């Protein structure tokens, strides 16, 4: 079920009201039922895959507490391998076969493509990673195994974050299902406001920009340099608003019911370096990879070259997590290269700025760093968005060619869409800058209930009217 569908507009109030009205002992079961309905709205049969993952890790969690120390690692490996097998079959099988055929082709052996038709279960990578984190934390002794299957299943399937995160850790979420939840006006209104902001990002910004981006990236060779540049700039905001908008709605929906999910974004385009960008972008995934891949590989507590290797492996795997396509692997690796190059060149950049008399805190330096980081991120996004490496190379090599400011519209995106698209991006940036300065709109509007309600209602109505509803689902669902 999409958050932006009419079904969700009915589903969410019913689930929330039911959650607060039913007896406490039934609340978790109620959430599990709601989560099943939510997930089955996509492809009902795929809930069985989810159940398999849940059962594997539920049993593994209990087993890890019971088996002798010597067997714990074996059980952990079996559990991780079993969970990952589901992911491999449904997400990476075709990619692996395709890559083998491609490699064989380079070696002069021509293999036929097998006919395989597998639809990727929505959000598979998200709930798989959430399950894995549970098993690993139990293995590490940071989390007690959950004995109640209903509670554990609800932890994996909790509908606000089921299909696109945030990827929760058991220490943060699991215990919340055993806490008593009472209706809180403060939490409900804060949650609803957060949801409204998420809908603004998703419907008004992301889905409008998607019209332009889809037109251009569907056949980039039909567009001039101006359009390729605009499309790439728009995609940077589309993917940010699409994904962070989803996270806002998820966090807000959970908050209305009294649950606290982890933050997933923190104004990533305000970063002054790629390293900082990755501390602000998809935080739940970045920390997942840091804790369960980068650090086990040795992290930064190794020599220089092993450290570089660890960074590149982590980012390449992160790229692969996003999609079964070489474009994603190159996108991840490029970000790793950025990070390594950024660390290696820091000394020289500092020296150049110092020679120019520009200090660390100088607004000029911050602006240069901000712009550089954004441009580097945009270049990487080309690899992420393009349908193939060939398309990505075309876009990257044609940004600056054949500029024509009189021909910037596309088939789906008329000129009249530009003011709304650009205006909403500016509004977003201003709002994020104010939020970074701890500005709270409630304080400005606090004096009068009428003013406050009018402001909130106007915002909601504007989101409704300026939203785009005819687009595809959230980008990150496919991961």
């Amino acid at each position, binding site marked *: 079920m999409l958050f932006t569908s009419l079904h969700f507009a009915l589903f969410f109030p019913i689930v929330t009201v039911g959650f607060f009205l039913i007896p406490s002992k039934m609340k978790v079961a109620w959430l599990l039922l709601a989560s099943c309905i939510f997930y089955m709205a996509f492809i009902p049969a795929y809930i069985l895959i989810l159940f398999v993952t849940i059962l594997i890790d539920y049993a593994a969690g209990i087993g890890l507490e019971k088996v002798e120390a010597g067997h714990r690692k074996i059980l952990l490996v079996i559990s991780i391998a079993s969970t990952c097998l589901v992911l491999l079959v449904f997400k990476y099988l075709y990619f692996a076969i395709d890559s083998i055929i491609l490699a064989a082709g380079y070696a002069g052996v021509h293999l036929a493509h097998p006919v395989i038709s597998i639809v990727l279960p929505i959000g598979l990578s998200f709930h798989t990673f959430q399950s894995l984190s549970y098993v690993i934390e139990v293995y590490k002794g940071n989390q007690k195994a959950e004995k109640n299957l209903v509670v554990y299943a609800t932890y994996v399937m909790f509908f606000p974050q089921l299909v696109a995160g945030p990827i929760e850790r058991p220490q943060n979420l699991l*215990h919340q299902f055993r806490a008593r939840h009472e209706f809180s006006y403060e939490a409900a*209104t804060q949650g609803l406001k957060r949801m409204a902001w998420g809908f603004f990002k998703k419907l008004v910004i992301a889905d409008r920009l998607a019209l332009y981006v889809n037109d251009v990236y569907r056949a980039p060779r039909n567009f001039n340099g101006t359009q390729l540049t605009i499309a790439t700039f728009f995609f940077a905001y589309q993917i940010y608003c699409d994904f962070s908008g989803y996270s806002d709605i998820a966090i807000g929906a959970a908050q209305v019911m009294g649950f606290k999910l982890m933050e997933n974004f923190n104004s990533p385009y305000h970063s002054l370096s790629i390293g900082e960008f990755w501390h602000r972008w998809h935080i739940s995934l970045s920390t997942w990879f840091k804790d369960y891949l980068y650090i086990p590989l040795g992290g930064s507590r190794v020599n220089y070259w092993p450290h570089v290797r660890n960074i590149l492996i982590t980012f390449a795997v992160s790229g692969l997590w996003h999609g079964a396509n070489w474009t994603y692997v190159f996108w991840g690796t490029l970000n790793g290269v950025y990070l390594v190059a950024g660390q290696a060149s820091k000394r020289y950049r500092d020296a150049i700025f110092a020679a120019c008399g520009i200090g660390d805190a100088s607004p000029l330096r911050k602006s240069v760093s901000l712009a550089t980081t954004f441009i580097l991120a945009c270049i990487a996004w080309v690899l992420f968005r393009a349908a193939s490496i060939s398309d990505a190379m075309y876009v990257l090599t044609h940004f600056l060619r054949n500029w024509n400011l009189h021909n910037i519209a596309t088939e789906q995106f008329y000129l009249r869409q530009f003011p709304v698209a650009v205006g909403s991006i500016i509004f977003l940036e201003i709002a994020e800058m104010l939020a970074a300065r701890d500005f709270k709109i409630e304080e400005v509007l606090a004096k009068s209930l009428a003013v406050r*309600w009018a402001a909130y*209602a106007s915002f909601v109505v504007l989101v409704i009217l300026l939203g*785009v509803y005819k687009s595809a689902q959230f980008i990150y669902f496919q991961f």
Partner: protein
Amino acid sequence: MSPIVETRDSHRPISMRDMSQGDNGIDPRRWPNVLRILCFVGMLVIACYLLNGMVSKGLRMLTSDEFGAWNEEMQGRVNADVIISGSSRAANHFDPREIARVTGLTAFNIGRNGTQTDVQLGVLRAYLEHNRKPRIIIQNLDAFTFVTTRELYDPALYIPYIDDHEIYQTMRKVDVELTQGRYIPLYDYAVEDMNFTWWLGLKGLVGINPKNTIYLGFKPRDRAWSDEFDRFRAGNPKGVTFPVQPDGVRVLEDMITLCHENGIQLVLVYSPEYDGMQRMTKNREEIFAEFRELSKRYNVPFWDYSQWKYVDDTSMFYNSQHMNSRGAEMFSIDFARQLAAYMNKLGWQVGGQSASGTNVMTSTLGSMNAVRFH
């Protein structure tokens, strides 16, 4: 107060007994807060209904351009003798001013962009419901005449009149989701429309009209031929096929029957189409055989302008399907003369002024030779 009441050791495994502890339902002391949220939601819903009503009202008040022409039709202010119905080809090709000048009868073009015959029939029915019956209806045909509508083009145009029976039924047949706007405020303006038509409606409410580009429903397009068709042809080297769907045939039959039942003379016209496109249409003969068959079976004249004198002249078209304003002007004059001759043949004794000031009947015979009669 935190919504999460931490009552137990967070690392202790949970049991159903744990969850059964504590309150059931909402604490009665919190009801005022619940009511407060409900009041806000209620206020929001009322605001949406009001805004929806204001937008629709504003759109119905517009007097220029697309909505202006549509409002004339739906508010019964047209009452013309000659009505031209069809798709954007009808809207772009037939100038009612020329028809009126040559025939001396009032004329109006109700052609709709992006419509197939099923929607055109709905629009015609709505027209007939609100206006005096015309003496003659010109139904312009297309290669895609027998293809039924899968998606309503520019749905915002129909939303202010969603309560009209004919419009509602037409929208419902195309896509039942379109009619949700009848019950959910702002649904259609927000979800189905991508052109910010709600803003046009709000401006209409305070009397601000858009710039007019439409004359008695006729939409002249002052555009030059582009490379669009060459790209289209390159993308379809094997040509294109337009299905002849039984439902599509039935809709045209319904339209013929509607005219017969109302005592209105119907004329089927295939207005000029760029020659290159005609050659690209692989099943053109099948489509035209169906036109001829219907024409014969129902005794309705079918005028085919496929061989019109300018069909291979790109200066008269802006794409393969549509003539530009220059082509439309030339065609409208030729068509109006033929229409006048036909009406006189029926004994209606019509006639106006030709562009050169001579009586139209003396110059009609020449133009008739360019058209195939069936």
